[in-house]
């Protein structure tokens, strides 16, 4: 009987398994295959060489990689510091207000990312909402604050805010109140409780939130293009260019593979570092 149950589980999983194979894994395999094709071919039926990877090394694409990862890291760090108090309040303090806040944040996702970023451009540009008002009211002349690295990081923080906030709130809600109270009772200060109780017990939420925002930010394109005006070129930008203007599919694929490899390694490392089950007290 138990054997049949196991089999039924397998059988039930089969349809989604095939869908995932086709929609998720197959494109990845195609990209991986293209990345080892000779330069500027549009067919997979060529003798593989690694010339695309050589190009990446030789032509200084590492700069884009560093910018992508650096800004992803910066935005993740900012997001964590920004979201922690809010997530804490959502999980432990706000009560019913949490729902309103959740809806408000989720509703913002209904509007396309690009449109929201254009909104920020209109707000921040020279002659835009802020600068224009200041000029009209005080007669001060100044530049807009667009087209620099901090504003790109700001854009990343803005766009990926929910991806940090909700996992964090989820993680914090798993910190038992009585453990915090007991720690206070045993003499721990607020900061000590944060360090000894909150952070370790909310770790699953922290890891999930950080990974989501880091991975998304590292592959982000619109922020640097729109807000940053391509003051720096990020990895996703290079990939797009290679596939479109460059008409060099193998190069685009190789660039993608490099990004996937780095982010994938980080993600696996992050998840394995924090044993989710152990932290939840599930594993014996």
């Amino acid at each position, binding site marked *: 009987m138990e054997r049949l149950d196991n089999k039924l589980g397998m059988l039930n999983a089969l349809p989604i398994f095939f869908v995932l194979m086709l929609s998720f894994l197959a494109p990845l395999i195609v990209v991986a295959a293209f990345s080892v094709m000779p330069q500027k071919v549009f067919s997979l039926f060529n003798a593989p060489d690694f010339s695309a990877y050589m190009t990446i090394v030789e032509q200084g694409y590492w700069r884009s990689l560093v910018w992508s990862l650096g800004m992803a890291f910066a935005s993740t760090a900012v997001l964590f510091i920004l979201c922690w108090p809010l997530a804490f309040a959502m999980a432990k303090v706000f009560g019913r207000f949490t729902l309103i806040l959740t809806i408000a944040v989720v509703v913002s996702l209904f509007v396309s990312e690009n449109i929201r970023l254009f909104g920020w451009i209109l707000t921040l540009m020279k002659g835009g909402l802020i600068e224009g008002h200041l000029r009209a009211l005080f007669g001060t002349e100044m530049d807009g604050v667009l087209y620099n690295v901090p504003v790109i990081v700001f854009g990343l923080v803005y766009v990926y805010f929910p991806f940090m906030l909700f996992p964090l709130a989820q993680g914090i809600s798993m910190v*038992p109140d009585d453990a915090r109270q007991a720690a206070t009772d045993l003499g721990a200060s607020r900061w000590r409780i944060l360090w*000894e109780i909150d952070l370790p017990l909310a770790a699953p939420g922290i890891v999930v939130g950080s990974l989501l925002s880091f991975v998304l930010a590292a592959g982000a394109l619109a922020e640097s293009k729109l807000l940053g005006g391509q003051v720096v070129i990020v990895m996703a930008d290079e990939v797009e260019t290679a596939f479109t203007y460059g008409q060099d599919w193998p190069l685009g694929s190789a660039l993608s593979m490099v990004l996937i490899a780095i982010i994938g390694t980080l993600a696996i490392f992050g998840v394995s570092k924090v044993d989710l089950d152990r932290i939840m007290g599930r594993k014996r």
Partner: protein
Amino acid sequence: MDMKPVLRLKNIVKRFGEFVALHGIDLDIEDGEFLTIVGPSGSGKTTLIRLLVGMDNPTEGEIWLRDKRIDTVPANARPTCMVFQSLALFPHRSVGENIEFPLKIRGVSKTKRKQRALELLELLRLPEHYYSKRINQCSGGERQRVALARALAFDPEILFFDEPLSALDYRLRKTLEKELKDLHERTGKTFVYITHSLEEAMVMSDRIAIMRSGRLEQVTDAEGIYARPVSRFVAEFMGEVNLFDIEGTAQGSVRSKGVEVHVNGANGDNGVDLAPGETATLMVRPEFVRFLKSTETNDFVVKGLLRAEYALGSRMQYLVEAADGSHLTVEKLREDRYTGAIGDEVVLGWDIDHTHFIRGD
């Protein structure tokens, strides 16, 4: 020998908006005693202990720990600590790390911490290798001991307990009650325990404080609570009891309103000191009520019909219906069990020495 109380509560009032949770509690807790605060849910005992540990502040009144007023001192700055109902062990820390937590906060060195943790494991009769065990590998009773060890590592002036045994099964609870009493004797610390189970309180405590809707109803030792309750509430809270409304008569005897209570030897020297017309409640515990043989008599006598018999393990319980339809409970050891049959007409009697008069409600 007059000992200064370690903790003194002066007219503690706690209000939550309109609701008054505590109506002016006055209580002195003696150094080294085991005091249990007992009350049904909603009586305010949890509110009270939260004030005592510092998780909440009283609306009015003062709390003095020896010569220091502490009612506004936050929990983490008080030299007291509590064993939580949920135990509140840290799931991400090992047994040893849990026990060492208060020492770590105080900045005690690693080796000293470990040494103390091992001592405490021994004190609580947990094997040494539990030091590195995870909390979720421990059974309910073991967790209980870890929580105790952690609290003792804090070395508190007073150790509070918020019903830590309530989630355990009966047998384990009985064992741990005795262990706790034993631990109290060995450590000499002041224990303040809250529970809704008076039985638990009776086993462990030096003194028992009964709480009822935000007030302390009676504070005395187990014997006093059991034999001389100040109110019907306390009498009934302590388990099975027979209560009659009575009134003093001119002959220095009593007259019962509902149940027929015959008082023999009513010569003014029977220990009944009710003034004529004064009302009170007569209380007698079921184990002091006897089935009288036709030749016997007693200070108090009630006639009735035997309605039911229940086996309570070592004892038998009988339900007797009196003439007016009210019920009496009688308990006998098995060896003294009533030999007749259900439906028998029986005569119950008891001594004046086992009778207590409750004045007021």
